[in-house]
């Protein structure tokens, strides 16, 4: 358990450093949903090249780390309906709200953006209630 929070803190520092590079070098807010979403609908200011390069890094490093140090558990549900509904909600929701955990959460809160703080309160609140409802009351997840 102690190892978990040290890894969490260390990983968090790396995540924030990635955001710092993206901001100071490219002048962009590092939001995963915005970077992916711009490739889907062509919106936003970043070029397709920098979006694809960013995502290549996001895919590549975890792959290299699992090859070097062994795999990690993901505990992804096998329930197909849950995965499809969750994916649709995450995709639509983050684009309507214009951000997710990285854009509103990390990048928004760190600049004390009211929108980032409010969005984070709502998605954490909704996520918490969802887990309580679907895990403890309905027993689906």
């Amino acid at each position: 358990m102690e190892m978990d929070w040290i890894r969490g803190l260390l990983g968090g520092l790396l995540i924030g450093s990635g955001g710092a590079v993206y901001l100071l070098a490219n002048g962009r807010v590092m939001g995963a949903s915005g970077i992916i979403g711009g490739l889907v609908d062509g919106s936003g200011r970043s070029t397709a090249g920098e979006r694809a390069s960013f995502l290549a890094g996001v895919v590549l490093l975890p792959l290299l780390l699992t090859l070097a140090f062994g795999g990690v558990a993901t505990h992804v549900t096998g329930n197909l309906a849950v995965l499809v509904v969750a994916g649709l909600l995450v995709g639509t929701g983050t684009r309507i709200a214009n951000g997710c955990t990285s854009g509103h959460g990390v990048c928004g809160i760190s600049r004390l953006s009211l929108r980032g703080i409010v969005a984070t309160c709502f998605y954490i609140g909704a996520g918490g209630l969802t887990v309580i409802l679907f895990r403890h009351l309905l027993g689906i997840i």
Partner: protein
Amino acid sequence: MRNLYALLAGSLFGAGLHISGMTDTAKVQGWLDIFGDWDPTLAFVMGGAILPMAIAWRVAAVRKAPLTGGSFPEPPEPRLGRNLVIGSVLFGIGWGLAGLCPGPAVASITYGGSGVVVFMLAMLAGMGLAPRARSYLDRAVPAE
């Protein structure tokens, strides 16, 4: 050069998601589940990520332009708006259901099995539907 910096940023982001354990849906749902065996890890990840990012915003405030040129992002929009709230609630429900958000889904796409691939395809479909959902909201819920 922009692409190289983007690759570096994405690599740091991906490594951070992996090392922090955020690609493990059980840890994410464990943090959201305050009535279960609560897992505090996500709070450390958030705190750790906000620290360098807060410094970066300070640095950006005193610099004229990003390293590769262009301009820094506009100051945050002060208006909240119903889309921010509705979108975040929808996102939160999906996040709670699967324990996945966009970053970790991309990071674990090579080792998360078919489940992450299904989630990713549904997420991309959801993103494709978002403009329609937005215009539906414009008609159904009058602007504030």
